[in-house]
């Protein structure tokens, strides 16, 4: 195991310092933060602009001012659309809201402006409508009307509480996000492993290394090193995501509303870590079989395609979470980590299925390490050529 660990350390250190890895690992969160910041600033930035409004119903009370997040909007009431349009053309206002005559029968208000109103202006216009309809209502009623039925759902069996709003969104989105990260990282990992093995074959370092260490130790070390590397990458991305989401949601909801599906996350990790090793081992095997990097990438792409299986059938699976397709994909080692996360978030998964899924992944991992180690010896002596099926069979026979 010491030698496998040495290989893992060397693999990790070689790659973690590479420019490509650093760019990819830190570049993606940075890019997401930049894009998110731009979007948030566009939605919330700047003071509330001057707008006008026209009440064609004749039933709204005049509103002198509306306060949103410590900013005050003083809308100008116009008697007809023509006057509002002229003020807009003269540049007195940046836009005007028209409340149609049939508003109380279901008609929708219209906003005319140079650009779409940002989130704060939208909020200000909603408050304006409420104040216009209930001019004499006390502040506590108006405040409550902003969010009259934020329901918290309590699960009968577990007592788990899930509140509507950002908390619920986070609860549902977390497994989906983790599943996407898993798929993305295993796809990257399988690709990188394949290319790395092809590169080692090209560098002709294998034959020297293989006389110091057994193929099984070498494969284990490589997979371990690459997995640690990917966990580092995923860790940075998750940390970035948590910080980013935290910043966006800071102050908008109470922490007690945040409901994290710990059970789903625990099983996601239990299945995801060996599942990740499995993908990395298979990626190594594809690199062993491939003749060049391009071929390795193509084969890794096919493997990644398999990993995305749950996404293709998501519609069918959600309609029948415990159905044959859902159960089948839970027991299939390449899709088990992602599908289990989804299923556990949305419903209960029987314990026997979780146990069977974990056992199948572990058995598949052991079998794939054995298989890759066997063909490794045969393939490393062949430079620039793909391993043919008969050579694979011969390597397995000689084992």
């Amino acid at each position, binding site marked *: 195991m010491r030698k496998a660990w040495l290989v893992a350390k*060397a693999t990790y250190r070689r790659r973690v310092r590479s420019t490509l890895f650093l760019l990819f690992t830190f570049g993606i969160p940075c890019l997401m933060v930049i894009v998110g910041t731009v979007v948030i600033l566009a939605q919330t930035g700047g003071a509330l602009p001057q707008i006008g409004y026209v009440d064609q119903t004749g039933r709204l009370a005049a509103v002198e001012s509306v306060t949103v997040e410590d900013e005050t909007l003083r809308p100008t009431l116009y008697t007809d659309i023509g006057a509002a349009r002229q003020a807009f053309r003269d540049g007195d206002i940046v836009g005007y809201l028209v409340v149609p005559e049939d508003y109380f029968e279901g008609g929708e208000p219209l906003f005319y402006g140079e650009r779409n109103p940002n989130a704060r202006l939208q909020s200000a216009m909603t408050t304006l409508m409420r104040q216009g309809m209930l001019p004499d209502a006390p502040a506590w009623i108006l405040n409550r009307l902003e969010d009259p039925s934020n329901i918290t759902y309590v699960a009968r069996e577990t007592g788990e509480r899930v509140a509507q709003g950002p908390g619920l969104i986070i609860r549902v989105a977390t497994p989906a996000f983790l599943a996407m990260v898993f798929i993305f990282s295993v796809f990257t990992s399988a690709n990188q492993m394949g290319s790395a093995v092809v590169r080692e074959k090209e560098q002709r370092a294998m034959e020297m290394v293989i006389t110091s260490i057994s193929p099984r130790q070498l494969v284990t070390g490589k997979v371990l090193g690459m997995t640690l590397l990917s966990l580092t990458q995923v860790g940075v991305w998750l940390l970035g995501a948590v910080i980013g989401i935290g910043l966006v949601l800071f102050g908008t909801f109470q922490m007690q509303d945040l409901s994290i599906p710990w059970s789903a996350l625990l099983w996601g990790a239990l299945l995801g870590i060996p599942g990740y090793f499995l993908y990395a081992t298979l990626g190594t095997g594809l690199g062993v079989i491939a003749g060049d990097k391009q071929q390795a990438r193509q084969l890794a792409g096919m493997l990644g395609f398999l990993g995305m299986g749950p996404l293709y059938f998501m519609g069918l699976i959600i309609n029948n979470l415990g159905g044959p397709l859902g159960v089948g994909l839970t027991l299939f080692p390449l899709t088990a980590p992602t599908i289990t996360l989804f299923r556990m978030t949305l419903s209960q998964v029987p314990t026997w299925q979780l146990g069977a899924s974990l056992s199948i992944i572990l058995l598949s991992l052991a079998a794939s390490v054995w298989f890759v180690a066997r063909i490794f010896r045969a393939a490393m002596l062949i430079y620039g050529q793909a391993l043919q099926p008969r050579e694979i069979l011969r390597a397995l026979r000689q084992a």
Partner: protein
Amino acid sequence: MNESMHAVEVRDVSKAYATVQAVDDLSFTVDRGEIFGLLGPNGAGKTTTIRMMLDIIKPSAGEIGVLGGPMTEEKKSRIGYLPEERGLYDDMTVLDTLLFLGQLKGLSSATARERAETYLREVELWEARDRKIEALSQGMNQKAQFVAGTMHEPELLIIDEPFSGLDPVNTRIIKNLLLHMRDRGTAIIMSTHQMQRVEELCERILLIDHGRRVLYGPLEEIREQFVANAVEVDLDGELEEVAGVRRLSPRNGGYRMTLEEGVQPETVLQVLVGMPEVTVQRFERVQRSLDDIFVQVVGHEVENAEEEVA
């Protein structure tokens, strides 16, 4: 199998692929403390033989003993190997590469660092220790590979074309290191096409062709077998013809004499001594180079080679 004598014992080994008999009933031994030349033309089966010794591939038949028995994982740390088509990790520094490969051979981190420094200084690469492998010249790369294969001070070193890409200065450095290792008791199997290096370094050789053993034994004895039927003579006086000599060729103030079939050099010497008009100053049998022997034995350009010797 005697562990104290033979570092390697190959007995009746064959290796067949689908349509090719790569190695055919091959037997030889390599002793501790000797440099053994494993020779043969391209495709003769040398690399296959080496890979079988190292248990990279399995023989179809026969037995191979390495360091006193079958190859095991434990023995990998006692063996050094430099394959012909070798390379190191381009994106690692020289020192990191050596520390990694040294530790894979069972050295502790501290010992690997100590040995890496010692050997890098010996091959004059210490100043380049922090350079990436990809930034090294071919000769420097070769030396780094040599250190990588030997820094764990193996009991058996198998080395394929150790001098390719080296200038005379670096060739001498590597030669001295090999001799030093041999004197320390390391068994060295050297495969090369540079016959001059074999003549300089090897005590015994094995020449294989088409997977079969064609020459095997001490180098001096093999050269005796292939001595040319010719002599070189320095003398005072002129010669036009000599009894028992088929061809007389002036050369560097003397003569090269190709003898008739069945005529011994001693007979010609007696004839020359008996000639009053000449005084013999030097009389020497023509030794054939290993290069000539190689060419003759493996059957390529034999006639040309004989003409050259004659």
